[in-house]
């Protein structure tokens, strides 16, 4: 016999993240948070740089050497990309907070604008850095 009063069996939770087909806006939102975290870490690196610059030529040279190694450059590249993405998407969030561009199609299109502008800004920064 089925107990119809109140099932004593704990109910399972229906599947969520594992089955949901996340739209680009959701992925952008996750990326926004991750880049935020990366930037916070990057700020520590930045602080290390400033401290080293303040504590004498030798330390300064050491940090500069680390920063210009392949690994250092890759980290700086990712950091700058994270910075520009977070900035562009942050601006979009500010525009969203005024109630604009919240329609489905516009939100989708501004995804691409944010990505494109972030990529262009990163590319321009690095081209400038290498031309110098």
């Amino acid at each position: 016999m089925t107990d119809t009063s109140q099932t004593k069996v704990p109910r399972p939770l229906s599947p969520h993240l594992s089955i949901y087909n996340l739209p680009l806006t959701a992925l952008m939102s996750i990326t926004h948070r991750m880049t935020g975290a990366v930037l916070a870490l990057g700020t520590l690196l930045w602080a290390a740089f400033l401290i080293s610059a303040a504590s004498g030529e030798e330390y300064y040279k050491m940090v500069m050497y680390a920063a210009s190694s392949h690994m250092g450059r890759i980290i700086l590249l990712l950091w700058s990309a994270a910075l520009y993405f977070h900035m562009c998407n942050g601006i979009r969030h500010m525009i969203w907070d005024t109630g604009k561009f919240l329609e489905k199609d516009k939100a989708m299109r501004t995804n691409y604008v944010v990505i494109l502008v972030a990529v262009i800004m990163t590319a321009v920064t690095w081209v400038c850095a290498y031309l110098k």
Partner: protein
Amino acid sequence: MAEILLPPNSRFIKGEKIDASDGAKRKKTFKIYRWSPDTKDAKGNVKNPRFDEVTIDLDKCGPMVLDALLYIKNNIDPTLTLRRSCREGICGSCAMNIDGTNTLACTKAIDDVNGDVQVSPLPHMPVVKDLVPDLNHVYAQYTTIEPWLKTDSPAPSRERLQSADDADILNGHDGHGPAACILCFCCSTSCPSYWWNADRFLGPAILLQAYRWIADSRDDATGERLDALEDPFRLYRCHTIMNCTNTCPKGLNPAKAIAEIKKMMVARQ
């Protein structure tokens, strides 16, 4: 807090494979979430949920996912449990996750899905049975926004009138305003913020309804309604992820309604 993994009693076990297509030309496989408190193993413990794969002949059923589910229920497995009523996208009963997106089974065409059609209950909800989620909590949240007209003036002898422009705010010029919401909860159960914070965040469906009363020119309780939402969780857990607007089967825009409420909060300070 955010629990990415499903709790132990909610993970899947191997399901059954049933081929009822009988050499059909147009066949399709439906992977359907199944769980029942009455399905027990030899020791008497309730079995975990599973996805059953059922292959059917599409020429034998109607064009929508709901048609296929009812075909399976009527002809293959009568224990398959789901909610439906209107079968024309207006009652909101048949909301479920189909092919990774929340929508109404009765308005989702089978042909819109490439490959197998995966069907599961609205996400991150307690399951009553199969495709039926427990909606008690969302309904309780709905009552907290007091979804009725509140006025200071005495009741007139006829309806309270409203200008066409004011009515447009509720209905939308295109018919996609907040008054068109059918409370199917596709949006709320698509929202990651709601998944992780449903205990305190009201979620897009309820906030859209809150906005529907806040924006009503005939309602005199706007300030009181905004006060009730002034809370770090109830309203402000929305981070404009936009899953809600992307998924609404009626083409409504809960994310925008939420942004409008946030704007009104700032404007009245």
